[in-house]
């Protein structure tokens, strides 16, 4: 009568031990894979960070270049307007002088 009762109590700790072992193995494997994935994520984050800095440098340079070009274009346009106006004023003055009979001055 005592044998059937005592058998499960002896096997039970062994089953728990095996279950704990399997869980520990699974945890170790998952932890290792997680560590590898973490490394991969860190590398990707570093690469993205570096690329963003690189693009920021390029963008800053492009802004400066665009500013220099715009400044030059506007300055040249301003000079063009100024010379056009001066030329027009001279032509009008010459026409006025001609109409007054001052051909030599015109």
């Amino acid at each position, binding site marked *: 009568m005592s044998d059937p009762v005592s058998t499960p109590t002896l096997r039970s700790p062994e089953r728990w031990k095996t279950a704990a*072992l399997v869980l*520990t*193995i699974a945890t*170790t*494997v998952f932890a*290792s*894979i997680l*560590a*590898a994935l973490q*490394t*991969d994520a860190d*590398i990707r984050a*570093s*690469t993205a960070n*570096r690329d963003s*800095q*690189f693009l920021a*440098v*390029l963008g*800053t*340079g492009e802004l*400066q*270049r665009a500013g*220099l*070009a715009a*400044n*030059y274009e506007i*300055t*040249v346009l301003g*000079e063009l307007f100024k*010379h056009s106006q001066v030329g027009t004023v001279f032509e009008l003055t010459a026409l006025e002088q001609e109409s007054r009979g001052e051909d030599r001055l015109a």
Partner: protein
Amino acid sequence: MKYADAEPAGQPRRELATANVIAIVSLTTALAVWWTSIIASSAADLSRHGLIDAIKVQAGASEDWRKAYEEAASAARFSAYAAEAEALVSSADPAAQARGENLKAYLLPNLQLPAAPLATDPVYALPSGAYDIAERIEDLQAGSDLAALDPEASFARGDRMASQQRWLVVGSVLLAISLFWLAVAQITHARRRALTFVVGLAFFGAGVSWLPVIGAVYALLNGGAQ
């Protein structure tokens, strides 16, 4: 009874052997992690070097652009005064002619100095009468030491090292799993010990073979030994 007779004779020897293998695997894991850290550090160094180079290149390019547009503004002013001087010289009025000659003799050379070589070198003259500023910028960049730096080459090399780091971590994971199985072998008995010991050794063999293969492959990709 059978185990009780067999274990006392062989167990200390097996425990010692397992402990020795655990020590070897631990040392190998430490060396693999060290190597991985060196590679990670080199990858970070190359990325930083590339960024520093990118800033240098950009600073050089900005200076070239500034110089070219400064020359262009002076050249525009010079060309306007040169046209004025030509118009005065070709005038019928002797006073205007004299003024034009004086402008040519005294003013234009001074205006030409800050405009050179854009306003003086015929290479930069366009048929429309304007100046080829893009050509001037290209020439300035071609003569610059900073423009010769190649940040993207550093980035590519850094990326290869980061990739190597990824695969080396896989090797370290294999070694860690091996270490786990060997630790299990140390606390188990008889057949289970033999089985776990063999599994641990298999993972160790895989990890130890993996690391030099990765080293060799990336040494080839990087064009030489690291």
